[in-house]
């Protein structure tokens, strides 16, 4: 009896406590499986290439060497690719958020005539699409091929993200908009000064969806652009992973002799780390807003 009283909160049976232990061990294992692969790549990339090649850099680096990073960061192409991906992420995300907000706001107003029609029209794009070839032909006929615009415009808005924003805007009390309108404010001003500040968390979530999508996207770059000046980081990574001796190409492009010291794997892993680094830097915000944003999106409109 005395033991029972010592337990705080709701009483748990012994079976439930054992269950807790099993669940926690299972989840700990799962978390390890989710996180370990990336950890290993980081450890491998900072290990001494010759030691790492013999295997064994499983938990901690074997030796320590950043020669691979130094060589990679000396090439011009990595900086060009990084610049393009950063630009695409920043410019593309700004365009996407503004465009989505401007589309979502009228749709969130009950009095907006044609609301149902527009919504249906935009929703349908989530169910059916023409495919990459007709889209490619549209981009080509607009004269956007091999331009920076081709990296940010064709994928500028997703109906899904737009509807997440519309749901958030719909939750704002209509009286706010009405009273501002009575005072003679136009919709652009009302949206920017009154409505948008209220839904900042949703806007941030959508911005992160777009931002991550932009950073990870490669298909636009692959299909619409061909010059190295417009190469994206993801495509740079793909080319390095696909070639069998990108290490030699990198060494010769910075005017160094390939001594066989740097291994292909160690070069590849360093580039994987460089590609993933921006995501990991913003990861705490990313995961938090992703969770809240997706949870908002789960509420159907």
């Amino acid at each position, binding site marked *: 009896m005395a033991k029972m009283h010592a337990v705080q909160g709701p009483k748990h049976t012994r079976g439930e406590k054992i269950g807790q232990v099993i669940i926690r061990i299972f989840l700990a294992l799962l978390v390890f499986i*989710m996180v370990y692969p990336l950890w290993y790549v980081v450890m491998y990339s900072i290990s001494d290439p010759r030691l790492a090649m013999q295997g064994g850099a*499983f938990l901690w680096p074997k030796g320590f060497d950043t020669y691979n990073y130094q060589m990679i960061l000396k090439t011009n192409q990595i900086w060009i690719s990084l610049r393009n991906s950063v630009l695409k992420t920043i410019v593309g995300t700004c365009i996407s958020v503004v*465009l989505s907000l401007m589309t979502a706001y009228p749709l969130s107003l009950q009095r907006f005539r044609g609301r149902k029609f527009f919504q249906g029209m935009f929703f349908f794009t989530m169910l059916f699409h023409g495919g990459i*070839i007709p889209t490619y032909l549209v981009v080509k006929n607009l004269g956007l091929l091999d331009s920076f615009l081709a990296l940010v415009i064709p994928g*500028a808005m997703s109906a899904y993200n737009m509807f997440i924003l519309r749901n958030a805007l719909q939750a704002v009390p209509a009286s706010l908009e009405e009273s501002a309108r009575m005072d003679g404010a136009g919709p652009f001003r009302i949206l920017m000064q009154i409505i948008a500040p209220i839904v900042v968390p949703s806007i941030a979530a959508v911005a992160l969806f777009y931002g*991550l999508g932009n950073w990870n996207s490669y298909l636009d770059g692959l299909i619409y652009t061909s010059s190295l000046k417009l190469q994206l980081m993801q495509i740079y990574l*793909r080319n390095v992973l696909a070639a069998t001796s990108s290490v030699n190409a990198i060494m010769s492009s910075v005017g160094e002799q390939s001594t066989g010291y740097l291994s292909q794997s160690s070069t590849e892993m360093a580039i994987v780390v460089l590609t993933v680094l921006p995501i990991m830097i913003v990861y705490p915000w990313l995961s938090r807003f992703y969770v809240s944003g997706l949870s908002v999106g789960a509420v159907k409109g």
Partner: protein
Amino acid sequence: MSERVLMERSRSQRIKKTFREIIADYPLYIMILPGLLYFIIFHYLPMFGVSIAFTDYSIVKGFGDMNFVGWKWFDRLFSRKSFTDALFNNIKYSLLKLCCFPLPILLSIIISEVWNNKYKRVVQTMVIMPSFLSWFIVYGILKALLNVTDGVLPALMTWMNTTLGTNFEIVNFMTNKATFTPYVLITYAWKEIGMGTVVYLAAIVAIDQQLYEAAMIDGASRMKQIRHILLPSLLPTIITLFIFRVGKVMDAGFDQMFALSNPLVTSAADIIDTYVYRVGLEEAKFSQATAAGLFKSAIGLCLVLFTNWMARKVDPDSAIM
């Protein structure tokens, strides 16, 4: 007679009123214009662009000079082994991946059963991590893990063979056709399962706690509570997500296949989308590729309409349209 005149008049007045309202709200239409143009140009024009699947479009001659050829490209598709192979793979991966649909639900229930909130949050933050990586990054990671000479998995297998007496055959899983299907499925589950839990966990948190309290007073066990409270509360969310999932079922994962495939496994990794990419953009056979893509999109659309119709019969609230 006069009634009709009145009705006509009231109708024309209604139209006038509508018109006045639109005029009064014209800034809203200006605001939606860029978005409207965007969807028309980049989504509706390509939808009409699929018409080249029925013509002999060539990039040199352009849209002006093309002839209607009927179902020629579709007939040709099905006479090509490369396409029927891709279709078979597509259906195989689609169905196998669809079987992974319950995994996030299961995982969400397990996570929600943890008493310690901090533990719960850390687990949730960590399991979604792989979803943030692109498939090329995942491929890079796999190259490191599975590398036969210095990778983790071969090392682990060798260790198990020598100490535990297991009998794993050490192969390069990235280029081994025989194990390609499980390789695709496991990497898919690893990357996507975490993101799938987010919505379910939010729905589980939203369940009225009083239901649980009432059940506990009635002496219902944890399992019974899951069975009679948690699952029924989760059902509308499950159905809605399932409809969306079925709508995408024909998407067997272009990004994944594109990143993981290599010449040694092409026949096992080719799906309709990669086929479209190869035939259309590498071989520049636009009409042929568009026909293949249209075939896929049309099936996808039918499937989502059908599932939605079914869902409406079961529970009208969980239908998406």
